[in-house]
């Protein structure tokens, strides 16, 4: 008989193995799914996971797709480390895109090297502002940030729609809901000719490094981790919880806002109603998939981008429905969450399980 027992210490090995196990389980389930759909499982998996990356162009697109998810997920990871349940990266991204677009449209006729940085800064500040709202609501009014950030996502979307249907609409665009095309000086330079991979991808990588250093090498990062592990300990240590909450939400907002403004000044090149196909929500999965560690998140964001591209690819090549993308994402995350059990517990064949105490164990991380 199988017995479950708690490990005395978390298993490092399992920490690395569990994502692999989850990926394998997802692949097996995916193969079964393809079989169910009357497709060859191997061909299906190949089309889904390998074909999108078969050339340099595919790899460049992977970077383009992963960058906004990665930026949002880095910010979310910092929040989640502090047990601040920010679901609002989507709204922060949209608001950043809106403010960045507004700045870009004001500067249509202006040229100069400082124009683009200014636009990006505007976007990041927009996102920070949108992150500051739930932070203040939580610190000053004790309002649950899960709910306020969800509501703020809807509000940001509607404000953006208002902007693009109203004041920011292209005056020469026949009243269609799109802004004018941004000028050259407000567009991101690309890194490789003939592809869309832009310098924003470098910003995303930079964010990985910055967050890594922040979390592992700085005092504020230490405070964030302590707050997340045990808020009472943080209190007794004299850490200012309010300041930390504001800090993590504004940091996440800034990164998400940057992601938003990078989208409009990069691959899109104008403000449109649909800036994000849910990057902020995908980033939540990515943050957990990468177990809130910068490097893990980097890998997870690439995987997530690949799932999106694979979903498109199986539609084009095999005529399968788009719903597969959601199924794969959901399965992947559920399997991972399930496999993480093995980090804290081990399963033994036979023998007596030792009783374990109901100790508070860090969640998710």
């Amino acid at each position: 008989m199988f017995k479950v027992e708690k490990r005395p210490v978390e298993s490092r090995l399992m920490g690395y193995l569990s994502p692999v196990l989850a990926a394998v389980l997802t692949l097996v389930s995916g193969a079964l799914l393809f079989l169910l759909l009357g497709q060859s499982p191997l061909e299906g998996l190949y089309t889904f996971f390998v074909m999108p990356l078969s050339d340099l162009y595919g790899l460049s697109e992977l970077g383009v797709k992963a960058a906004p998810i990665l930026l949002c997920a880095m910010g979310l990871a910092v929040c989640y480390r502090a047990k601040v349940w920010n679901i609002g990266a989507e709204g922060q991204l949209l608001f950043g895109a809106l403010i960045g677009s507004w700045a870009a449209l004001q500067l249509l006729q202006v040229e100069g090297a400082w124009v683009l940085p200014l636009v990006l800064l505007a976007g990041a500040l927009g996102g920070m502002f949108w992150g500051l709202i739930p932070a203040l609501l939580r610190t000053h009014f004790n309002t649950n940030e899960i709910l306020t950030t969800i509501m703020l996502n809807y509000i940001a979307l509607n404000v953006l729609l208002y902007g693009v249907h109203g004041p920011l609409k292209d005056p020469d665009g026949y009243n269609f809901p799109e802004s004018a095309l941004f000028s050259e000086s407000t567009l991101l330079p690309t890194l490789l000719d003939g592809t869309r991979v832009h310098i924003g991808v470098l910003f995303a990588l930079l964010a990985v490094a910055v967050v890594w250093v922040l979390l592992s090498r700085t005092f504020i990062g230490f405070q964030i981790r302590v707050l997340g592990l045990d808020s009472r300990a943080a209190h007794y240590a004299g850490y200012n919880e309010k300041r930390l909450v504001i800090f993590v939400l504004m940091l996440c907002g800034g990164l998400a806002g940057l992601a938003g403004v990078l989208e409009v000044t990069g691959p899109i090149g104008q403000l449109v109603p649909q800036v994000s196909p849910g990057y902020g929500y995908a980033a939540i999965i990515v943050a957990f998939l990468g177990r809130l560690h910068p490097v893990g998140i980097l890998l997870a964001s690439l995987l997530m981008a690949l799932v999106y591209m694979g979903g498109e690819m199986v539609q084009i090549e095999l005529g399968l429905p788009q719903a597969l993308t959601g199924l794969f994402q959901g399965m992947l995350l559920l399997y991972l969450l399930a496999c993480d059990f093995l980090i804290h517990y081990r399963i033994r064949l036979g023998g007596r399980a030792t009783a374990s105490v109901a100790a508070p164990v860090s969640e998710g991380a």
Partner: protein
Amino acid sequence: MDIDFIINVLYAMIRTGTPLLIVALGELVCERSGVLNLGQEGMMLVGAVCGFIVAATTGSLFLGVLAAMLAGCLMALLFGLVALGLSATQVATGLALTILGAGLSAFIGESFVGQTVLGFKALPIPLLSEIPLLGPLLFNHDVLVYLSFGLFAGVIWFLRSTRAGLMLKAIGETPESATAVGLPVMRVRYLAVLFGGAMAGLAGGYLSLAYTPLWAEGMTAGRGWIALALVVFASWRAERVMFGAYLFGLASILHLIVQGMGVSISSNLLAMLPYVVTILVLVLLSSDKARVRLYAPMSLGKPFHRTQ
């Protein structure tokens, strides 16, 4: 604006609020046991599609509703196995459930798009429906709306006056002491999660079988999230859930009626009003820290580790 008009608006408010009320009641029970399930939207969608498929193939609305609830339960069971059985983070597990549910429902419902069933019709209750004003308002609904009234009363009664209800609340507050006195924490939490799933499935079924009898991808359009906010709005009190659900329903209806009256405000700005109102109310309710402490289940969202 005559009295009939007002009654009609309130009638629409009840219908609009009903799916929210049903999901929120389920989530409330779930949260009172200490479990936060953010997967409402996914469970609703799977409930909606399964209910519709069964009703369309068997021709029985009753079986459709049962299927919707069962489907919601199965989704909730998945949540339970991962979040309770394997002690995974509840927030992440719930989100995964929502994503999975959206994909799954689109996947299995594909061939049922563009069909319809003869949905639940209003069923006036004899005598009661003839009471002036109140009759047309309360006693001229479809059977699922009556069911929501019953569920509302049932949940209040359960939490207030039954042993099981008290047990559930105790477990939600301090699972450790509940275990110490021999309460079956895990079993109760599983049951609460399953109840939440059944309610989300039922609410999905209400949409696809009574409100707009059709299946279309993503037809719940964010109502699961609203329901989550309603639970906090109600400060975890069942009595207030109905008030919140109907208030949100009223806000949704009014923003449309105001437009019909010729008020010219950007429709996008109007569309965000219900969300702004929700935040404001949340702020008002939660700003009194002591009160929230009093109402929010102490162990909400925290994993409980089995002690076997």
